[in-house]
């Protein structure tokens, strides 16, 4: 969880806490450091503290405790307008009484830049977001996607090294969101800027980021690259929050050779990989991704434990089959199989046996 402070850290949070009312901590002991050029996403349910962290970095909220450093220097006592951090707001926050060009000129005028240099930078920034022809329009004459492009151009026009984005695509429709996701990541990598991106949309987080910090209850639950986050969740919150997930509850019966034997509440025994359970007798919640559930037992280890299952529902989804099973007393167990010629199409009521590779079944905290 704690990444410690490394010498090449560009943005650092060290033991940061935040409380609005002096009693409840919204952010509890945050430690985070990211190198220059990284695209980091803060992901979490609402109220998890992710937006508060972003606001502290931008300077709109002050940390109750701890230190925030930018490029090695503490920024705790620097007001927002002197931090030189770009930001894209959820509702765009374009100045409605100014044209697009004037909006982009604003940060440059503040920096007392000459007219010709200003014009040049504005034109370049608008071209970057493919809005070159819209310089003289007013924000109210633009669509949501266009406004967000302008907001992005405005955050980049003064060439900040760090850009913050607070759910910038939240108000847009799915198609526009996807194309802008791609554009933003492409732009960020091309310009070499460091981005801290806040979202509650996990697909967005997984597709855009170099690393994702999953927030819950004021803490980072896991900080990892997207693939690791999905395949190796470190605790049951992350397993539940990212992607689809089957959970079974039980007690650790044996830990041996790096694997655990878990006795489920219904009495069945399964193999699992102990992740954050240490001792025998501890309660655990095991997590298996639907696509890692195997009904063709020949593919498993001959001594692997298997479970009986009853098919409840079989849904044909084109490229995949989605089967809802009754397993160990729960009827919401999902198995996802690829549509292949040898893959049987199951019928409701059919009795099968399922299993999995022990390393795909993660024994997590209960």
């Amino acid at each position, binding site marked *: 969880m704690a990444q410690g402070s490394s010498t090449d850290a560009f943005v650092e949070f060290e033991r940061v806490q935040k409380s609005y009312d002096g009693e409840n901590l919204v952010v509890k002991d945050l430690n985070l450091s990211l190198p220059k050029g990284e695209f980091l996403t803060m992901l979490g349910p609402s109220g998890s503290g992710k937006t508060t962290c972003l606001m502290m970095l*931008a300077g709109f909220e002050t940390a109750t405790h701890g230190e925030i450093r930018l490029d090695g220097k503490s920024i705790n006592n620097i007001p927002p307008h002197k931090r030189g951090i770009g930001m894209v*707001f959820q*509702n765009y*926050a374009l100045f409605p*009484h100014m044209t697009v060009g004037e909006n982009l000129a604003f*940060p440059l005028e503040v920096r007392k830049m000459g007219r010709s240099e200003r014009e040049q930078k504005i034109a370049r920034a608008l071209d970057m977001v493919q809005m070159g022809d819209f310089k003289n329009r*007013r924000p109210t004459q633009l669509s949501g996607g266009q406004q967000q492009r302008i907001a992005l151009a405005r955050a980049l026009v003064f060439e900040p090294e760090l850009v913050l984005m607070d759910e910038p695509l939240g108000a847009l429709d799915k198609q526009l969101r996807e194309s802008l996701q791609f554009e933003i990541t492409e732009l960020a990598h091309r310009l070499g800027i460091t981005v801290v991106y806040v979202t509650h949309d996990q697909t967005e987080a997984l597709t855009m980021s170099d690393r994702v910090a999953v927030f819950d209850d004021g803490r980072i639950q896991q900080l990892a690259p997207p693939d690791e986050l999905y395949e190796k969740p470190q605790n049951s919150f992350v397993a539940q929050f990212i992607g689809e997930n089957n959970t079974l509850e039980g007690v650790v019966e044996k830990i041996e050779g790096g694997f655990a034997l878990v006795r489920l509440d219904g009495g069945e025994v399964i193999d699992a990989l102990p992740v954050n359970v240490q001792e025998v007798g501890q309660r655990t919640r095991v997590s298996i991704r639907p696509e890692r559930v195997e009904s063709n037992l020949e593919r498993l280890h001959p001594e692997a434990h298997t479970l009986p299952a009853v098919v409840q529902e079989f849904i044909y989804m084109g490229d995949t089959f989605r089967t809802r099973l009754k397993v160990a007393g729960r009827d919401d167990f999902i198995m996802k199989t690829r549509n292949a010629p040898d893959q049987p199409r199951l019928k409701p009521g059919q009795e099968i046996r399922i299993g999995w590779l022990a390393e795909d079944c993660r024994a997590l905290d209960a």
Partner: protein
Amino acid sequence: MAALPPYASTGQKIWHYAYRAICAAIFFFLIAPILVIIPLSFNAENFFTFTPEMLRLDPEGYSLKHYRDFFGNPDWQVPLWNSLKIAPVATFLSVALGTLAAIGLSQPHVPFRRAIMATLISPMIVPLIISAAGMYFFYSRIGLQGTYWGVVLAHAALGIPFVIITVTATLVGFDRSLTRAAANLGAGPVRTFFKVQMPLILPGVVSGGLFAFITSFDEVVVVLFVGSAGQKTLPWQMFTGLREQISPTILAAATVLISISVVLLVTLEVLRRRSERLRGMSPG
């Protein structure tokens, strides 16, 4: 007004027409006393009635003599200039203080917000005569009674509630993330205020200012208490003029005041439409 639907009952039809009649009567009673003053102010005689010549629309019956009196006689010119010296300064104070108060009170973390707001707005609610009497005693103590600045401050206090109310109303629609965006882009608080917040709440500030100006320009009770002969304002002169020397010049003065009010109200409406267009609420 919507047309009567075909299924309306007799009662509804009667009410429909009665409603129109009531509306017409209300407008008549509001506007007629004001309109009748305007032609009378062009009376060639020193009467408050329409002369037979006027009714015949004979040019002989009309003249600008009351306007000449108004603009030539020091009895009217001194109060007019007094009013013009007091109202703009009082308005400036009302606008500056009222706008700042409204912005401050719209911040969510200010303690006792409602109590402070109620106190600042009280001059609008408390009967004027009570405010006036209170100001008289208070200003006498601190040496402001009967001074120019005493009247200016008293009028500013009366104007502040209007500014607070109109600015607060515009601030409701003001997106706070705009000030954050400005700060993020490098603008300090002062620049943010004048370049981002002020232009967007300007319609509220201006209409509050107009109300404050009209309040000061029309005010007679407070100035009678707080002012002295040196601060005799136009309404004061009209008030005494009515009792002491009944001259139709007062009609010319009234017409001038009405014209000023109408111009101000039209300005207000134009500004309101402009701001709506800027916010994209109506196509423009």
